[in-house]
């Protein structure tokens, strides 16, 4: 019996790996969550859940006590929290830790050499990539202390419940997704079931080195392939427009220099250490609430970007790319395909779910869970449309 404690159990990956391992009698699973509010995907299954705050080593020790393997699917944590987790794993002589890194550590424009994991690293230039990179380095230190760790490195995660896909659908509907080279740039994807399979392999692999290991899907997918699969859910929207590469670069460069206020506010609000302190200190909670409510006072342009809808390059409304989402443009500029040679060799990794099959399942899930296309969809669409309606008169 392999006893596995899964941290970040309520995340898409956590949930999928738990569902996978529960079907196998050789595993005993302990899903560990931070708070129940986001754990409904687990709650509905009636599983016994354990709550643990990673800021509290005592709670961590209780969560891991008696478990031989640990999977960490939690969002990037402050360095202190990941150290807490690895300290407890080391102290309790856990047999294997499987951690999730992310290709974001290679930066927003990785070179062709980043097809392989050992490519030299530049600054990630995103807070997410930076946090993941710090986490990777801490993990390596614990490997040198004797902790057996696998560090899987996925790109964008697709599959049922994927936020990444639902966000793209929203941009397709809004006309805010722009494609470079008519969508012929590569897109690095991993289906969540393939990632869950890789995590299982990493739990049991003979030897792991604690260094990043790319886990991606097998097929060389392009942006146009993904858009083609999602257009049936775009509610009749026009296909996305093509954007010249130079213009795309200009949009992204402008974004980097124009959102410092956004980054400051966002990082303060999202910082888990501040969240943890809030519980104890009413004063900090007040500041946090003020900052959150203060977001509403920000200019609309910055507010739009806080909501993830992209940043305008110019103030002029004549610019047709004003509303184009820059996050997805940046991803297209990466123009590299991460290869899984190491995963195949070290973990015997072979993707189980193909791209077309995975997207078919996603569309089915999306229709069932959002009501897209059902007999009430016309009413539902009216609700969407009036959310932003400005043409009201008082009666």
């Amino acid at each position, binding site marked *: 019996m392999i006893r596995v404690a899964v941290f970040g159990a309520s995340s898409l990956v956590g949930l999928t790996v738990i569902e996978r391992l529960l079907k196998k009698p050789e595993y005993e699973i302990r899903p560990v969550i931070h708070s129940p509010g986001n754990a409904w995907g687990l709650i509905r299954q009636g599983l016994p859940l354990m709550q643990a705050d990673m800021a509290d080593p005592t709670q961590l020790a209780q969560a891991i006590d008696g478990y031989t393997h640990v999977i960490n699917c939690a969002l990037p944590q402050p360095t202190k929290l990941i150290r807490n987790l690895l300290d407890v794993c080391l102290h309790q002589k856990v047999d294997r830790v499987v951690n999730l890194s992310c290709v974001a550590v290679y930066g927003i424009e990785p070179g062709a050499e980043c097809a392989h994991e050992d490519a030299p690293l530049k600054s990630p230039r995103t807070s997410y990539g930076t946090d993941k990179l710090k986490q990777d380095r801490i993990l390596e230190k614990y490997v040198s202390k004797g902790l057996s760790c696998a560090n899987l490195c996925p790109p964008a995660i697709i599959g049922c419940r994927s936020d990444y896909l639902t966000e793209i659908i929203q941009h397709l509907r809004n006309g805010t997704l722009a494609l470079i080279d008519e969508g012929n740039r590569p897109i690095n994807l991993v289906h969540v079931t393939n990632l869950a399979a890789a995590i299982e392999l990493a739990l049991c692999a003979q030897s792991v080195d604690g260094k990043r290991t790319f886990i991606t899907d097998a097929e060389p997918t392009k942006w146009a392939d993904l858009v083609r699969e999602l257009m049936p859910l775009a509610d009749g929207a026009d296909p996305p427009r093509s954007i010249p590469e130079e213009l795309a670069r200009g949009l992204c460069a402008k974004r980097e220099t124009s959102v410092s206020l956004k980054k400051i506010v966002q990082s303060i609000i999202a910082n888990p250490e501040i969240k943890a302190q809030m519980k104890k200190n009413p004063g900090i909670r007040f500041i946090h609430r003020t900052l959150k409510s203060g977001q509403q006072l920000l200019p609309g342009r910055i507010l739009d970007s806080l909501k993830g809808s992209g940043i305008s390059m110019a103030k002029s409304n004549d610019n047709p790319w004003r509303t184009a989402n820059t996050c997805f443009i940046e991803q297209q500029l990466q123009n590299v395909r991460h290869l899984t040679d190491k995963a195949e060799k070290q973990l015997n990794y072979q993707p189980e779910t193909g791209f077309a099959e995975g997207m078919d399942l996603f569309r089915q899930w999306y229709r069932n*869970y959002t009501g897209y296309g059902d007999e009430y969809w016309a009413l539902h669409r009216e*609700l969407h449309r009036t*959310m932003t309606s400005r*043409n009201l008169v008082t009666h």
Partner: protein
Amino acid sequence: MTMTADQPKLRLAIVGAGRITRQSHLPAALGHPEVECCALVDSCEQRSLEVCRDLGVNIPIATQIEDVIEGLDAAVIATPNASHHQIAVACLSRGVHTLIEKPMAVGVEQGQAILLAAERSNAVVAVGYHMRFRQTVTLMKKLLSDGYFGTIHRFSYTFGTDGGWSPVSGYIMDRKSSGGGVLVVSGSHFINRMLYWFGYPSSIEYQDDSQGGPEANALIDVEFSKTEKPIRGRIRLSKTVELPAGFVMETDRGIVVLHDHKDAQITIGESYDDGCRIQLTIKDGEMPQGDEYELQMNDFVEACQQGRNPRVGGSEGLESDRFFQQCYANRMAREMNPFASTAGDAK
């Protein structure tokens, strides 16, 4: 117990020191000039102490209602759903008026016991469907009753968040404690409004994604056949998928929209058209406005003082509970359930 204007303040206990007490019930009670908060009751003393500390108040603390019940006129019950019944009956049987967080009870039988205890002691039972204190909810009822919209053809209500409210006790993780999932936790507010607007449906079809725990997604089809032409409705609720929160109704007069936030207004527009929408509002001063929990507390206190029914009384709470029970009892078979095949895609 009927109070008069020259009587002392209403001696109120709040039972349950969770998030809803901290954020809403206790501030509403503390801000009411005719209420004396004389106890905060929670089985976890530390939780009560933290609430008092954070709000900067000094309220006597107890770990069970029986310890303070003798000195009370009224109680707010904001504990895990499955405990409402026992605490409410204990209060009501001693003549203590109660405002019970929604749902009033888990199941019709428990709800009926609450009403019986209230009837015997002539005490007030109010149920915490705070959204009923929105002006638009009352306005919609009036417009429907007056036939303003002409024939109603069908309606849709959706509410969906990716996660959300996290109660301090974590009771939502246990179906026995919560009495249900998204239907009871999030959907109950709309169900209560729907019953207020349209009455009890003649037909209910229910599906959800529960695999033993409280459901995270639910789909309910209802039909109301009291009108000449039956009104059909679909309610879609989710705790895992973001959906716009609001009510849309197809009527002879146009498409009626009411978004699910406190400042939203009722609007009517051309069918599925981007044309101009008309906004319907109540005249200023016709109905009180303000924080819904404060309005709810005002209503409860007045009901206790005047011996009148509160805006949302026990009978209405019971109708909602009956609806939930009927849904869960008639959950659609797995092979008919769209949630069953694609809850996830794990192999």
